[in-house]
């Protein structure tokens, strides 16, 4: 799977016209200067040769060196990772909380106006372009109310409160676009579970409604929700590109987009490999959680 991703990056390199020499040389570089830059960086060699040497280096754990950023690809990606992980992680938490709540409310008050209202609210997030929503939040909370900063990043290790303040708006924006999926999934799996015998039995035995919902129904409904969360994690990583641009965050998404625009190929390859690895990792975790949560899978062991 990661191999497919790395192959895709070579397809991109082969597709995309122009190379980094334009960025280094500027508008009025002479053809000789451009040739010199290309030789220096080894991008005058055929793609196949570059691919072979790239995979060779990869086996030794070397992702190469950025043409433009003056650091190794590993460093370039690692220094950005906290930003994107903060963003995607916090967004995932927010989306899960808001989505599950909306979903539970909708399921419990099935076919009421609360049900319809929650589902429309969930849909609104899916129906608004995130960049636009982000800018509106900036103006509202950053300028008009002045509660939160308009953009930028503070590492969590330096200042926790600052980190929360700086991450709230971007994470909220990103979460807003994803909570709808989780809300709908929660609703439908909750409806399934609420209808099942053991829940009815529990209620018949006189257990309180809230207890039933949270102890029995939600626990069982978690299985499909966790699956959705796994898929969402991947979406959040690529959605981060837009949010990072709007909120001026130095994340991996902007690193990769910028590298495509500037043709900094080693960073594109390394960056994509790392994000794809995270995606794979998250899905492995999801599979494990799935096994742990689903009584059927658990009992088989």
């Amino acid at each position: 799977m990661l191999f497919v991703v790395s192959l895709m990056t070579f397809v991109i390199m082969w597709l995309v016209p122009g190379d980094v020499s334009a960025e280094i040389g500027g508008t009025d570089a002479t053809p000789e200067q451009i040739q010199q830059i290309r030789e220096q960086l080894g991008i005058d060699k055929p793609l196949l040769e570059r691919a072979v040497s790239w995979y060779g280096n990869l086996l030794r754990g070397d992702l190469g060196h950025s043409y433009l950023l003056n650091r190794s690809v590993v460093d370039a990606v690692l220094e950005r990772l906290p930003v994107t992980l903060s963003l995607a992680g916090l967004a995932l938490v927010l989306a899960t909380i808001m989505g599950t709540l909306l979903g539970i409310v909708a399921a419990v008050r099935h076919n009421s106006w609360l049900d319809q209202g929650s589902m429309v609210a969930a849909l609104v997030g899916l129906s608004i372009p995130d960049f636009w929503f982000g800018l509106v939040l900036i103006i509202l909370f950053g300028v008009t109310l002045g509660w939160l900063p308009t953009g930028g990043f503070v590492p969590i290790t330096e200042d926790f409160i600052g980190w929360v303040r700086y991450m709230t708006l971007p994470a909220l924006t990103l979460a807003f676009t994803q909570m709808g999926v989780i809300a709908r999934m929660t609703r439908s799996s909750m409806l399934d579970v609420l209808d099942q015998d053991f829940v009815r039995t529990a209620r018949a035995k006189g257990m309180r409604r809230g207890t039933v919902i949270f102890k029995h129904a939600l626990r069982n409904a978690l299985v499909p929700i966790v699956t959705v969360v796994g898929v969402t994690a991947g979406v959040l990583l690529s959605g981060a590109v837009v949010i990072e641009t709007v909120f001026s965050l130095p994340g991996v998404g902007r690193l990769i987009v910028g590298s495509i625009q500037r043709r900094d190929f080693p960073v594109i390859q390394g960056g994509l490999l790392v994000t794809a690895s995270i995606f794979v990792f998250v899905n492995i975790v999801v599979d494990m959680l799935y096994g742990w949560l689903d009584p059927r899978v658990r009992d088989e062991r």
Partner: protein
Amino acid sequence: MSAEALDIDAGKSLRSEMASARRRRTLKFARELALHPSFTIGATIILVLALIAAFAPWLAPYDPNKNNYRDVLMGPSSTFWFGTDGFGRDILSRVIYGLRVSLMIGLVVAVLTGIFGTILGTAASYVKWLDGLLMRMLDGLMAFPGVLLAIALASALGPSEMTVIIALTVTYTPRTARVVRAAVLVVQGMQYVEAAKAVGAGHARIIFRYILGNALSPLIVQMTFVFAVSIIAEAIMSFLGVGPPPPAPSLGNIIADGRTYIQEAWWVAVFPGLVIAVAVLGLNLMGDGLRDIIDPRHRSER
């Protein structure tokens, strides 16, 4: 009568029985659709929007690409109901024409992912040795952020509607293929498919008549959602500068253009934004309705 003839007869009667069952189901399905509230609302919304898009040249009050330096960034008024943009172009006319482009992109992507998803999903579930390989490749594609693919494609081919369509199709096909594969795997084990195999129906026949026929419902639901997501994705691609190129309007590129003036000229981004929201809402309601009806578990609750 020989045993063989008996078998054939049995096959025939089985087939005709199934055909009539399908007809009955189709009728019932149509009736339920018409009665399902969210499907009806969603379908009405989409129908209205589709009609507006189709009759754009008659409905738009102005040429959507006509610049007018004297009327730059005018607010909504009786002359320009939705105001004008930074080029002095009428937003209402641009939204009407933009709806055309956005719906077209969404529809084409939905149909293409439907086709490729079906081919890949069926191949994976039907041809055992292909399954692992194909699924790993599709997982790889899923791990590859679609936005980045779009940016790369746009640099390679130049931005165009075609680029947007290709990038979105590549991005959403894996998920559709998974849906089809799952549906086919369920159907494959069912008795009537086993029966058809037993009576010696050819692979092509089994795939087209029995398996796909039954994978169709989840596929259509999935396509509705792809349609909706594509409309939003088009806007995001426009934001990143790789959407449908100027001067032709799409809902996404109007919003992307207007984002710089959110505080000075809110109307540039808000009106096309509302139309996108309504369109996506309509498609989702349609999809939800379809799923409710198709999925018997949900049906029982209604």
